[in-house]
């Protein structure tokens, strides 16, 4: 079966607005599962250095699959995934330059907050003592400095997710992949974590790929939104949001934000009608 030409009719021109060069590019990527479900077909997208890009779409549109492909947790059935040259070199040298945050906190219940955040470093052979400063810094970054000895079950849902983010950040990854990390949280907690995540992004200067099904969340967080359509999953349109726009409560209640949300909702609606 030949992959059809990429369906990028409504993609807006973004030349010159990109915050950086392409960190990685997916070209004509398809993914079929063993049960004959086609999750992705003819997916073209790139991730640029230092950007906050959201993959927005209905459930079943393959956005999580795209994230797993980028993480290397699964292989594409067709098409190619190219890393930027420097990135390829570095990834060989340090395979842990990707941080991944799952939809659930995915913490080890038998380990303390400290132990959970230590995990990626521990697996890389870094002892508790050596890892201590990095762990303390990651916990500080997510506002959990005082909870290092707590166990996951003693924490609220939002705090567990913060631990999960700290764990992803502890290796100082260049690329942070987040799979609907706040979907299970209440709105108040989600808003708070949105702000904190933006703060982390600004401070670390990492690249974030963020999967979500919330229009409002994607507009609030992203410098770029890729709207996915389903069956087969691929990018339907792209929206760019000025990365210099301050993201705060004033932005959340501003007419610009409302306008961007309307525009994004329309793009999403088009994506859902596309088949």
């Amino acid at each position, binding site marked *: 079966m030949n992959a059809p030409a990429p369906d990028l009719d409504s993609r807006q021109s973004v030349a010159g607005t990109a915050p950086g060069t392409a960190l990685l590019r997916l070209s004509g990527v398809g993914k079929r599962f063993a049960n004959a479900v086609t999750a992705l077909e003819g997916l073209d997208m790139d991730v640029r250095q230092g950007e906050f890009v959201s993959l927005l779409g209905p459930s079943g549109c393959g956005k999580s699959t795209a994230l*797993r492909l980028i*993480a*290397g*947790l699964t292989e594409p059935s067709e098409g190619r995934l190219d890393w930027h040259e420097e990135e390829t070199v570095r990834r060989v040298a340090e*395979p*842990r330059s*990707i941080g*991944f945050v*799952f939809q*659930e906190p*995915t913490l*080890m*219940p*038998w*380990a303390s907050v400290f132990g959970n955040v230590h*995990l*990626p470093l*521990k*697996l*890389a052979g870094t002892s508790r003592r050596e890892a201590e400063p990095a762990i303390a810094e990651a916990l500080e970054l997510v506002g959990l400095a005082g909870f290092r000895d707590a*166990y*996951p*079950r003693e924490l609220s849902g939002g705090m567990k997710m913060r631990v999960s983010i700290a764990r992803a950040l502890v290796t100082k990854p260049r690329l942070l992949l987040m799979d609907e990390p706040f979907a299970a949280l209440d709105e108040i907690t989600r808003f708070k974590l949105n702000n904190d995540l933006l703060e982390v992004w600004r401070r670390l200067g990492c690249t974030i790929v963020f999967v979500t099904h919330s229009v409002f969340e994607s507009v609030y967080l992203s410098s770029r939104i890729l709207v996915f359509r389903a069956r087969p999953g691929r990018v339907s349109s792209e929206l760019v949001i000025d990365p210099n726009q301050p993201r705060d409560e004033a932005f959340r209640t501003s007419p610009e934000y409302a306008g961007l949300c309307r525009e994004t909702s329309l793009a999403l609606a088009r994506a859902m009608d596309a088949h």
Partner: protein
Amino acid sequence: MATSPLRWFLPLGVLVALVLAWSLVVKINNLPPYVLPAPGEVLETLIEDRAVLFASMLVTLQTTVIALLFAVAGGGALALIFASARIVEFSLFPIAVILQVTPVIAVAPLMLIYLSTDAAVLVCAWIVAFFPVLSNTTLGLNSVDPNLRDLFRLSGASRGQTLVQLKLPTALPYFLGGLRIAGGLALIGAVVGEIAAGSAGQGSGLAFRIVESAYRLNIPRLFAALILISLTGIFIYAALSLLSWLALRRWHESELGGRT
């Protein structure tokens, strides 16, 4: 509720009431000791025959504990092999099930033909204790959170790291649950083996004392031996519960006693 004194007083009260009722039944019906001895008489026998009874109790306890250790080693090791190679699991699990569903009482006489008395009793106890450890540990090793497994993969974890830092801790509560079942079953297996050996006139454990006392119509001693078997079972259960609590108290729901 967990700390309420009622939790201790109520079951103790019921126990005392039962013993009193037993005592009354004997007194009112004027039952002879070879039919039903009074509780006091059983206690006297327990004290009088303490040398022989406690020696027997140690034999039974030792058999049970050794069988349990072998069950943990064998069941645990086989579960690890099962978890790393499904083909071994497919091949061997049915055999383990056959071993489990064949009543040990039916196997015991055979064991006594081929093995020495002590070894036969030990094997009987091991057979029944082995399966819960095996099946629970296998279940635990296969219950790893798929996201955590992905995370280990992303972090470049080796097979050994994944086993020690992910699979074993995940399996621990399941294993300990299996161990508690196995503890009770090992005692039953030991008693069954001893009874089979006892009917052949051999043995030295508590169940052998029961068979021996029954032959001699020494019913008070039979009751005394029975009480000691119960105490042995309670001791094993308590010891394994303590072990489970020590291992899981910080993180597992089962040992947190409703603390919020």
